[in-house]
């Protein structure tokens, strides 16, 4: 091989000897070269620049050896990231060496880019964990706890008694709780570790109740079996699983509100179909790295890209335009775009596509009563068939008679005004037809000959009434009665003795779009900055030029008009993590609904914040909730759970009505948010765990002894005051959660908003918070206040992990888990339409075990210890009124039927539903490892559709073998992770077409033959995916009743295409997408319609800076925690590769101006302090940042490079040290159509964007 020769002859210079020497050397070289050419016959280039040397041997073996490997295994990464990328894991000499992405996704078509190669730098660095020094290799326990346990265990010769003693003795309890998070972990053997964990569970269930145990494990789609096995264990115990999606604030609560659907979004391949793309608060290259290329590439099809972001984010690079509103003001920008679209595409000119769309698929034509409020009018309730005593005119006599039988369902039939008949009509497809017998075949969106009027406006002869609409843009949010009002006339008609208008007319008023003849306070034009919602008005709030907004709105709507709805908004955490994110999102969704973009490929919302899609949903749902053995399972909304049990409510000193609208009725007057949480529990809106002040096993025995129906028994006891909800006294030791198991998660380091309160109250560990408790006059009315707040409620924090995290540092017991490259599992996502496998590249090293194995062995030990201590018990289980069940029609009219104020309590109506569940605690392990009979006997219900997997149960018995011992004899075995995966795939419509077809057939019965849903079912009936398919290659799933969009090899997934193309109603009150929400509490907060609400003013809400900060050289800034480039939540953030590419420790990004103000240079150590805690980090100074806002990318934990703080002398906090939970009352609503609870569907969000902090430069000498 040829080394090039040295060539150029150096020019002669006069710089002395060195130059001369150089020249001589050069000439020598030249001559040698010539000589070599002659002697050796080596070739050179014609100018003798280079020599060809085919004669030399070179040593390039080291790199060949380095590359050589023994095998490549397909796997992926199992939680907290929704990427679901398929990876090649390389193994050499029995060691995992590195990983690269698979490129074998099935093609999405010849005319578009492909999914390969999906991945990101974080995933690419995963193998580092396998052998890293942060790997948990053995079971660990806090030394002080182990000592005390062993001593008691030996003395008492009984593990359960030992646990009871250690946790029951105040002094011993204090000793090990105080040691939490302070090191002192020691190794122990697996047997002993499992015994301690099992004893804790047995003791807690026996003494306190199964609802005092809880499990936390998020995002099941990313490793379904690992999640399901633990959740199944919890369900068999009767322990609640805590929701996570709402708790993370990733749940876009506007989605259930508007769509009646948790979250359903297009796969990233559908971005390609969009002709106009807005990236709004979503930094796609960072947070959806594997899919960002679709956005980059779609631009080459001429897609226009607008990025809305306060900083010059990574995504901005791809934008045609960058709009940078002040953080949290995005709603104002969207409202102004809506103003322009309504003005130019609905009032000044009508677009047939838009008009048809909103009439068919939204609630805009529905009628709303205008209610008198004092001397004025305000928007009221939807007008229903019951209100108007409507006999349904377009029905036959027979139908009418039937309808009469279902009188109560008429209260669930909102009406429109039919232009043809000149009369109100209850159109098909509303909630009244979803659950009623007479609704079979009628729950569809076909309007028939009904032509709903959008507006009652008539230029000359019309009647109108001025209504008061709230505005929150003036003055401080958080002041009672929140801001002011605008008075604007809406056209009305008198129907049945009521003044009635349409949602559309109210919307125009809300958006300030004036029509001649309507009185009130209307803006003069786009440049009127005084009144909402003009472009100039938004400029005063957001700083975005009015002209840019007008143009964006026009381009958006023009493109939608031309492409029939191919405009998409990718919306992210930048707009979703706010306290008022639901209002922000509703203002975005308005743009999409008005322009007919939803339910269209290439159009609609694309919410990518912690969203996931368990594509094989029915099967996962069945096995994870153990619904094949026991029903119902306990489910708990995460946010109220943490709000109460970490005592964050005690530090909230504002009254709940501080957020109310000036148009409200004072429903929250004199009440604390904790009171509203308690009310939501007793009305059956939200679940509550623990439920009552008594052990539900004790209550179960009492119900049985009384021989009563459980619900009636509970109602009686409640009425007599003999039973109390635990949430009404969360600080009573009887009502504490006692045992918490966290797996596939880092609760404490990652998602614990109000982190320091978790440490103080839940764990009893040290903390940095300095907030003051609410003064007596601000304390709850109904919830008991203890003078001394408890510290250390939890008896046991059990963590399963493969790496050290804040949770394992705090945990009492840490079990070493297998990594994602060491187990079998399944992964799916909504970002792509495939399901694919995890496979072990190596067996778990050291003493690590898979989650599957750990829960199986824990269940075995638990079952053993339960014998003679628990045996078979009866558990009184409370269930909230659930969405997608008849429970969602419990509370007609959207009122607040509090039985405490106006009784009586009626289970399942104004009270949760109750059931007695028999639990054989000695059979938990056996049931965990086999499939129970209830799935085929009672069916599996998903989103209101029930299917019976009888054939699948037989198939699973053949495939997996059957169990031998009683009471599980003959049942299909689920005793390996592969079999659990097989069951998930077999029991789901997306991966088993037979079930999909059955579900579509059921749906067709409800929606009628015109829906053609049966045909859709037949088209997928033959599809079948088994586990080995997913190991070979990612496999595309099929369309199923489990989801709202259609799937096909030639079709990208977009949500709600089944609704738009098969006229299937949305799961809402009107069966359409909602602009208007008429629940009493929505009205109280002034949020019946989309409205702009600014970020919370925390000072006005009573949050004060701690004394001593805010002095010299400090700056008060908005503290925002967007998703990081170098981690997926907390995972990877301590990974050496990622820290090397980042800054090597926690950092806060700060603008040049703010850095100058505190005299901090890049990389200086700074401290951020507010009442909730302290963060110590280094500054990254950048002109990318707007002044007044800092970013601390989440999740930056205390694990690496966090010194002690100057403010407290203790270790600086995690990114959530500066946040505190605040609950928005409207998120607690339940029992009313789409505003009903379901796990991870509806519930308060743990929002954290509204935080502010003081930042200053600190001493540069740091101590660890």
């Amino acid at each position, binding site marked *: 091989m040829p080394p090039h020769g040295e060539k150029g002859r150096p020019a002669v210079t006069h710089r002395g000897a060195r130059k001369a020497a150089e020249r001589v050397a050069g000439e020598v070289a030249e001559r040698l070269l010539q000589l070599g050419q002659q002697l050796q016959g080596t070739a050179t280039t014609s100018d003798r620049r280079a020599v060809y040397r085919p004669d030399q041997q070179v040593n390039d073996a080291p790199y060949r050896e380095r590359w*050589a490997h023994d095998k490549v295994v397909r796997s992926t990464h199992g939680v907290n990231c929704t990427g679901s990328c398929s990876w090649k894991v390389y193994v050499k000499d029995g060691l995992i060496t590195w990983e690269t992405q698979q490129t074998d996704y099935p093609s999405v078509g010849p005319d578009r880019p492909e999914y390969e190669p999906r991945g990101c730098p974080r995933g690419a660095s995963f193998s580092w964990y396998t052998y890293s020094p942060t790997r948990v290799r053995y079971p660990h326990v806090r030394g002080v706890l182990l000592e005390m346990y062993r001593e008691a265990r030996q003395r008492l010769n009984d593990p359960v008694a030992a646990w009871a003693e250690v946790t029951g003795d105040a002094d011993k309890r204090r000793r090990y709780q105080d040691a939490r998070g302070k090191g002192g972990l020691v190794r122990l053997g697996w047997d002993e570790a499992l015994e301690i964990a099992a004893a804790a569970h047995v003791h807690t269930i026996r003494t306190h109740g199964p609802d005092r145990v809880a499990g936390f494990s998020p995002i099941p789609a990313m490793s379904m079996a690992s999640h399901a096995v633990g959740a199944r264990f919890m369900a068999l115990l009767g322990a609640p699983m805590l929701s996570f999606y709402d708790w993370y604030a990733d749940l876009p609560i506007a989605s259930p509100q508007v769509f009646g659907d948790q979250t359903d979004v297009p796969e990233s391949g559908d971005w390609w179909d969009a002709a106009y793309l807005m990236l709004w608060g979503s930094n796609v290259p960072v947070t959806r790295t594997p899919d960002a290329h679709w956005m980059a*590439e779609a631009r080459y099809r001429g897609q226009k890209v607008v990025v809305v972001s306060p900083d010059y984010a990574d995504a901005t690079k791809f934008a045609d335009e960058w709009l940078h509103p002040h953080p949290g003001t995005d709603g104002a920008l969207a409202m102004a775009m809506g103003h322009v679209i309504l003005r130019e595409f609905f009032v000044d000119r009508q677009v047939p596509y838009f008009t048809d769309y909103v009439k068919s698929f939204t609630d805009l034509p529905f009628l709303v009563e205008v209610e008198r409020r004092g001397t004025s009018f305000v928007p009221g309730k939807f007008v229903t068939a019951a209100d108007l005593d409507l006999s349904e005119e377009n029905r036959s006599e027979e139908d009418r008679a039937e309808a009469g039988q279902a009188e109560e369902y008429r209260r669930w039939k909102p009406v429109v005004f039919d232009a043809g008949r000149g009369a109100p009509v209850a159109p098909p497809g509303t909630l009244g037809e979803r659950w009623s017998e007479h609704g079979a075949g009628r729950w569809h969106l076909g309007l028939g000959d009904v032509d709903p009027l959008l507006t009652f406006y008539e230029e000359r002869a019309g009647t109108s009434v001025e209504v008061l609409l709230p505005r929150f843009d003036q003055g401080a949010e958080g002041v009672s009665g929140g801001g002011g009002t605008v008075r604007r006339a809406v056209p009305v008609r008198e129907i049945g003795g009521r003044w009635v208008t349409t949602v559309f007319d109210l919307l125009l008023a809300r958006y300030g779009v004036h029509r001649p003849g309507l009185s009130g306070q209307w803006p003069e034009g786009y440049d009127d900055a005084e009144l909402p919602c003009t472009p100039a008005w938004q400029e005063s709030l957001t700083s975005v030029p009015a002209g840019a907004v007008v143009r964006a709105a026009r381009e958006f709507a023009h493109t939608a008009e031309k492409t029939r709805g191919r405009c998409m908004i990718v919306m992210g955490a930048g707009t979703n993590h706010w306290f008022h994110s639901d209002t922000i999102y509703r203002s975005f969704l308005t743009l999409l609904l008005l322009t007919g973009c939803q339910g269209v490929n290439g159009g609609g919302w694309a919410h990518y914040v912690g969203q996931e899609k368990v594509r094989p949903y029915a099967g996962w749902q069945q096995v994870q909730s153990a619904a094949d053995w026991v029903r119902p399972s306990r489910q708990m909304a995460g946010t109220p759970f943490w709000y109460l049990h970490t005592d964050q409510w005690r530090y909230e000193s504002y009254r709940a009505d501080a957020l109310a609208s000036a148009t409200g009725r004072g429903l929250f007057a004199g009440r604390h948010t904790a009171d509203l949480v308690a009310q939501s529990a007793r009305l059956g809106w939200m679940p509550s765990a623990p439920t009552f002040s008594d052990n539900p096993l004790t209550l179960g025995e009492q119900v049985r002894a009384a021989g009563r129906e459980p619900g009636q028994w509970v109602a009686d006891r409640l009425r007599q005051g003999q039973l109390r909800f635990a949430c009404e006294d969360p600080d009573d030791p009887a009502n504490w959660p006692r045992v918490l198991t966290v797996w596939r998660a880092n609760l404490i380091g990652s998602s614990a908003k109000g982190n320091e309160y978790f440490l103080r109250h839940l764990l009893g560990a040290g903390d940095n918070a300095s907030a003051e408790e609410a003064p007596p006059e601000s304390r709850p009315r109904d919830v008991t206040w203890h003078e001394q707040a408890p510290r250390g409620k939890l008896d046991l924090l059990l963590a399963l992990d493969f790496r*050290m995290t804040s949770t394992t540092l705090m945990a009492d017991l840490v079990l070493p888990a297998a990594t994602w490259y060491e187990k079998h599992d399944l992964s799916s996502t909504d970002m792509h339409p495939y399901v694919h496998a995890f496979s072990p590249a190596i067996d778990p090293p050291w003493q690590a075990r898979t989650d599957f194995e750990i829960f199986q062995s824990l269940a075995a030990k638990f079952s053993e210890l339960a014998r003679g201590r628990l045996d078979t018990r009866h558990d009184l289980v409370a269930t909230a009124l659930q969405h997608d069940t008849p429970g969602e029609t419990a509370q007609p009219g959207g009122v607040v039927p509090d039985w405490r104020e106006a009784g009586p309590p009626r289970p399942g109506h104004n009270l949760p539903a109750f059931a007695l569940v028999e639990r054989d605690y000695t059979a938990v392990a056996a049931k965990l490892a086999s499939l129970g009979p209830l799935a085929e006997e009672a069916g599996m219900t998903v989103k209101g559709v029930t299917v019976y997997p009888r054939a699948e149960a037989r198939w699973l018995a053949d495939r997996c073998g059957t169990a031998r011992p009683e009471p599980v004899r003959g049942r299909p075995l689920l005793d390996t992770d592969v079999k659990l995966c097989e069951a998930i795939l077999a029991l789901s419509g997306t991966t088993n077409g037979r079930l999909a077809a059955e579900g579509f057939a059921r749906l067709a019965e409800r929606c009628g033959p015109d829906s053609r849903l049966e045909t859709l079912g037949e088209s997928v009936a033959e599809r079948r995916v088994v586990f080995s398919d997913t190991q070979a290659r990612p496999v595309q799933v099929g369309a199923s009743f489990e989801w709202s969009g259609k799937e096909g090899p030639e079709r990208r997934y977009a949500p709600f295409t089944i609704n738009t193309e098969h006229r299937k109603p949305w799961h809402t009150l009107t069966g359409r997408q909602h602009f208007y929400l008429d629940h009493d509490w929505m009205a109280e907060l002034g949020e019946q319609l989309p409205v702009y609400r600014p970020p919370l003013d925390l000072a006005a809400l009573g949050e004060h800076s701690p004394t001593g900060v805010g002095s010299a050289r400090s700056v008060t800034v908005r503290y925002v925690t967007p998703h990081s480039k170098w981690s997926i939540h907390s995972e990877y953030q301590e990974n050496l590769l990622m820290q090397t*590419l980042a800054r090597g*420790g926690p950092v806060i990004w700060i603008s040049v101006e703010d850095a100058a103000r505190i005299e901090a240079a890049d990389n200086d150590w700074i401290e951020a302090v507010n009442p909730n805690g302290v963060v110590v980090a280094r500054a990254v*100074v950048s002109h990318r940042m707007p002044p007044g806002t800092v970013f601390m990318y989440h999740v930056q934990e205390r694990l690496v490079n966090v010194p002690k703080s100057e403010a407290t002398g203790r*270790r600086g906090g995690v990114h959530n040290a500066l946040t505190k939970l605040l609950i928005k009352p409207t998120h607690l609503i339940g029992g009313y159509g789409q505003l009903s609870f379901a796990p991870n569907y509806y519930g308060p969000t743990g929002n954290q964007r509204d935080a502010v902090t003081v930042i200053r430069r600190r001493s540069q000498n740091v101590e660890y």
Partner: protein
Amino acid sequence: MPRGTPPTRRVMAQVAMVMNLDKCIGCHTCSVTCKQTWTNRTGTEYVWFNNVETRPGQGYPRGHEDQDRWKGGWRLKGGRLVPRSGGRARRLARLFANPELPALSDYYEPWTYDYANLTTAPLGEDLPTAPPRSLIDGRPTDITWGPNWDDDLGGGPDQLAADPVLRQMNEKVRLEYEQAFMFYLPRICEHCLNPSCVAVCPSGALYKRIEDGIVLVDQDRCRGWRMCVSGCPYKKIYFNHRTGKAEKCTLCYPRIEAGEPTVCSETCVGRLRYLGVVLYDPDKVGEAARVPDEKDLYEAQLGCFLDPFDPEVARAAEASGIPHDWVTAARRSPVRALITDYRVALPLHPEYRTMPMVWYVPPLSPIVDSLTRSGHDGEDPANLFGAIDTLRIPLDYLAHLFTAGDTAPVEAALCRLAAMRTYMRRINLGDPRDPAIAQAVGLGGDDIEAMYRLLALAKYEDRYVIPTSYTGTLPPDTLDDGCSLDGNGGPGMYDAGLPGMDTFHTPPAPEPVAAGDGLRGRVNLLNWNGRGTPRGLFPRRRESEQ
């Protein structure tokens, strides 16, 4: 390989790369997969064969483009090329104290953390943490610089102003929020046609492979003089402080030889890398590298490339020993198409005169705020080309990266990208095609659509057109009693064993195959012993194939 007098026209083939910066999302996946595969070992902790820089920014190692300081590449001296680091004597004189060598602090001092503390900390007063430690000397360290320190404009104007390209620019760029701009620049070894690293190696350890142009360090010949580190203007040669030898990006030759893309390419999530064959005339390279005006270097390098569709070139190529498949690969080469046909890809720092072979499609960027404010309509084709100089990334900045300061080629490339978007938007929205848009940038409609397929659809088989290696020795085709991997020293063979070695444990030698068995050349699979390649089971190669 030809010896002696070369044929009348020597043709050489190079596997080259194009990166479409317009698609780069700055995710650094390429860096991580490369590092994991190649350099996560002692001695190379600080080494990133592939790194991604945010521009404007100083990059890695810090300010590597400042050749006044680092003396990399070539300079023109009296019409001749000399390494900027000086002639041989000067370099020899500095063998042991090379001031033009970036120090560890210019790269960064690699670190780790006391992770074990998290698990083993005894019961104390506060939460355990893992403080940083140097990976070089194991002592506690303060992290003050890293390989990606200015990622996403981190560091602020104070640091970013030290970007050598910014300092070169004619107009001062204000690094302020409203004017913010950035893009990412992934960098690997350029595998130059005229590599200065090869030229300055005193040991002759660096070489450019004849068959595919990959520039490598011979680990046996390298004596650790580190002249190459200085000589490479891209600072893409690193010193392994454990082995004392130089290491560099190998273009993943074990993969390339097998027809597979490099790790950085295949794992590129932005799908922005292309690999393909380029044919060039090696006898033109020196002359092209010597053109007096730096701004002519881009065109001069284009002039070195040969058209594989030209039958004359194809003949000369095969006469030069380039296999036919390589010539057809050159015809299908996406790299050639982007560089030569569409002229959207440009060389990185041609002014170093090394004739780099990793080229870049420059990035589009958002229009500036002043236009947003005034309601400028970027969608209107009439505004399209006027808008190029209103993009946030100053043309001048790109020109100083890719064309030695000449903005014309950059502007032309950006206009073509913009024209493609406008042209395709009409199709996307259902409007008739408008060939005038293509013509305005000197392309036909067909060209635009073909370019669109390459840049937008970018299918795997279109991104990477890599013929397999022709370095290996083909097994003799007369052999019919063994596997193609057999034969002394063949890759399928065990060592024959030392004299006296227990022959029982050595693999049995192939036995002669019983020929025929009455089946007239067909193989009786029932009694075939599985050894060798019996005639009839595999077709015989024809003489012409030998």
